[in-house]
């Protein structure tokens, strides 16, 4: 049989088999009312799940057989800028053609615009496999959140004009947010939008930097529409098309993801349309777009980690030293096991996040399109709850998956030894490609800023309550009790910080990383225990993760409990030495 990145991955198949999407499917499919109108629409939950399985298996084969073999050449060739025009590597062009032929460019869009109407969960799995095949291709395939943003906030007219072109692959997209002086702090965006009453259009003027695929046909642009404002409330979202006034001034020479062009853009009176309402560009639309992109980047990280781990494992099983293959040495198998367990743990968190994003989207859609009186009781409350949970899980997942993937790629080289340092092996490419994942769409440090509020407010507590009360027995029971103790320590640590140091913001910011990491450890431990109940052989994964990570949690606990302020007080002294 042909190679297949879905069928060869039992962990990913476990995730789709246990994705918990039944309710989401019924809501997305409007109780299967589209079957007469669209021949590809499913007629039941089972039919929809079968569709996901079959399409994922198809994507798995495309990734393994077509995309992965081109990845080395794509990395070596990179992108070129000639006379203001960007050229992809040949392999990238072929990859995009294949993905377009496979009708995957509008995975989440409604069928009426030519999309597949798939949930975020399934799209995330596609992203993961694409990234395993070629980390840089995710930056192009994974831009579907742009169309999704137009679908969520654009006018009906805009949707009709743009979405079918995205879904068919006729146009590609870019989101132009970052500027030289506005990176992590997007409130500082300066690119100017002014309304030209004579032509009845908006015009954009200014610069954007580090724009992934900035050479795209359709761009979403964050711009300052309210003259004289300085903060995020003066920014609006615009959509524009590639045109002579929009120049690609340079493309960046990067450490990794060479297949994806990172552009510096100059806007000279570029005609644009407003998306949604004025002044809500950053506060609402970019936040939504960014959260979608964070899930996509998490899957990119997991995909690259999967590729790095597999090559390391193959190498360790083949490489002989001291008369035996090196995977037999404790120092080596410890690293391999660490990779395997952490990838499974990251996947558990990522797809739990995707599930709540799906629930949030489905409930938000229901609330938005139903009369207030007709809404069943409790729907609004659920919609709010899912929204909160998704907002908490998304940055936690981004932080965990991308840091994990960096470690796996690092270990991947280590296991290869000297050969891993050479370009002859893929290990070094994975290491370079993965390095951006914990930086863009918000650095890990900013993910903790986004997550700490929800951690302190115990947004995940209802989920943890439920998970801790599952009917564990024997070894699983003992492990669950250990996690319960960890959770108590987490609460105690939070209590200690919020009770005693509520007004010491600097200290609070300092410990938020530790608190968020504790939150991740506890939540992921519960998820792995739950998975072990569903599939017994997964008990070893839960056991390994919990026994390795509880001592880490305890260290954070001890550090916070020690009341150590010296870093806040004396960091300048240390740096001045």
């Amino acid at each position: 049989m042909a190679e297949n990145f879905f069928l060869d991955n039992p962990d990913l198949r476990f995730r789709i088999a246990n994705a918990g999407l039944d309710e989401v499917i019924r809501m997305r499919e409007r109780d299967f009312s589209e079957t007469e109108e669209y021949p590809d629409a499913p007629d039941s939950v089972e039919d929809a799940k079968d569709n996901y399985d079959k399409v994922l298996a198809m994507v798995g084969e495309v990734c393994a057989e077509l995309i992965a073999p081109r990845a080395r050449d794509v990395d070596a060739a990179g992108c070129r800028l000639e006379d203001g025009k960007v050229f992809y590597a040949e392999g990238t062009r072929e990859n995009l053609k294949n993905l377009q032929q496979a009708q995957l460019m509008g995975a989440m869009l409604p069928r009426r615009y030519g999309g597949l109407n798939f949930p975020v969960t399934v799209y995330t799995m596609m992203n993961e496999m694409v990234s395993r095949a070629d980390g840089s291709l995710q930056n192009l395939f994974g831009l579907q959140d742009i169309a999704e943003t137009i679908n969520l906030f654009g006018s009906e007219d805009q949707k009709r004009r743009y979405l079918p072109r995205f879904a068919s692959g006729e146009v590609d997209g870019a989101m132009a947010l970052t500027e030289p002086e506005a990176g992590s702090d997007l409130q500082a965006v300066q690119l100017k939008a002014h309304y030209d009453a004579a032509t009845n259009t908006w015009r954009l003027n200014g610069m954007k930097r580090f724009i992934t695929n900035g050479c795209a046909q359709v761009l979403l642009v964050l711009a300052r529409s309210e003259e004289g404002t300085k903060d995020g409330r003066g920014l609006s979202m615009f959509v524009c098309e590639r045109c002579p006034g929009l120049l690609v001034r340079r493309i960046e020479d990067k450490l990794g993801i060479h297949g994806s062009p990172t552009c510096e853009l100059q806007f000279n009176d570029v005609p644009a349309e407003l998306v949604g309402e004025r002044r809500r560009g950053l506060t609402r639309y970019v936040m939504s777009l960014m959260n979608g992109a964070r899930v996509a980047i998490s899957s990119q990280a997991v995909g690259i980690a999967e590729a790095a781990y597999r090559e390391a494992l193959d190498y360790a099983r083949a490489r002989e030293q001291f008369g035996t293959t090196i995977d037999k040495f404790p120092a080596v198998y410890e690293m391999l096991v660490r990779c395997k367990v952490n990838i499974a743990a990251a996947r558990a968190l990522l797809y739990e996040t995707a599930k709540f994003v799906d629930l949030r989207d489905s409930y938000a859609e229901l609330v938005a399109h139903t009369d207030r009186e007709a809404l069943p009781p409790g729907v609004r409350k659920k919609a709010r709850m899912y929204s909160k949970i998704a907002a908490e899980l998304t940055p936690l997942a981004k932080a965990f998956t991308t840091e994990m993937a960096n470690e796996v790629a690092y270990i991947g080289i280590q296991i290869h030894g000297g050969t891993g340092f050479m370009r002859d092996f893929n290990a070094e490419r994975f290491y370079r490609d993965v390095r951006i994942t914990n930086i863009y769409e918000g650095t890990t440090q900013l993910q903790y800023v986004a997550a700490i509020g929800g951690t302190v407010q115990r947004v995940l507590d209802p989920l943890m309550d439920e998970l801790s009360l599952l009917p564990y027995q024997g070894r699983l029971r003992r492990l669950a009790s250990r996690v319960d103790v960890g959770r108590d320590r987490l609460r105690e640590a939070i209590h200690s910080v919020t009770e005693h140091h509520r007004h010491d913001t600097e200290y609070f910011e300092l410990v938020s990383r530790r608190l968020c990491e504790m939150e991740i450890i506890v939540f992921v431990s519960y998820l792995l225990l739950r998975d072990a109940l569903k599939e017994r052989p997964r008990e070893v994964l839960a056991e390994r993760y919990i026994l390795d990570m509880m001592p880490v949690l305890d260290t954070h606990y001890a550090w916070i409990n020690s009341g150590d302020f010296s870093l806040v007080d004396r960091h300048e002294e240390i740096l001045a030495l």
Partner: protein
Amino acid sequence: MSLTILVFVKQVPDTKNITGEAMKADGTVNRAALPAIFNPEDLNALEMALELRERYGGMVAVGTMGPPTATAVLRHALYMGADQAFLLTDRKFAGADTLATSYTLAAGARKFAAEIAPFDLVFCGRQAIDGDTAQVGPQLAEKLALPQLTYVEEIQEVTAGRLRARCLIEGGYEIIECPAPSLLTVVSTANTPRPPGARRLMQFKKARTRSELAAAHRDRAYEEADLLIEEERRLRDKGLWIHEWHAEDLDVEPDRIGMAGSPTKVKAIESVVLAGREYKQFGTDQASINQLVHELIEAHILS
């Protein structure tokens, strides 16, 4: 101009990825142990047909002869973009050599032309990876009285009644013009076959042959004849019908199909087992490599 292109494809055991016992004790292929796949060069033929349809418009139909399970390759062809599919299946077709196979396929092609649409071109893969004969395409051309081009890599142009193609020959290629309708066999270097389309996959996974429909209704088929007719009409209306033709549906003579129509006689099959009896390991230093070369020369492997 629009073209109707008929592509003949075959389901074959995957001889490239052998798992388990690939050969039976008598030296024949153990089909049960090998996964069944779409013959690779037939995918190239289908891709070429689909590209021509994109250029000139028209219709692409796929046909195959095989057991009912061969419907899998027809469905895959629909996922890739084929418009119509037909299965030639009958116990009487079993055991066919290339002569009986091409005879049966020709009858299928004529039925297609008579009942569905006259065709402008017939495509086949150069050869199948199970038999490696490369005979069926050329024989089919003879039976249909069509001019043939083999080893086609590229179709440069199709005009009314003519086409120009680049064909692979030893050490190079030739460009040939040929009247149409005609039959072409396609090589693997011609193109990269496209993946299935997700929307088509979700649509045509529900495509059925008559036997599959009957099997879904099991033994109740007789009592539920009305229901079956209704179901068949519904599937046909939605374009989800895979034509299934048996020997009695085709204009064929019983002694020219299947085993009876196959003059090929297998005299003997030799199961060649390559068993390394002993091996010798050499180091990677210069002295060891010199030693290796020396021994190879001694054994007259190198000279």
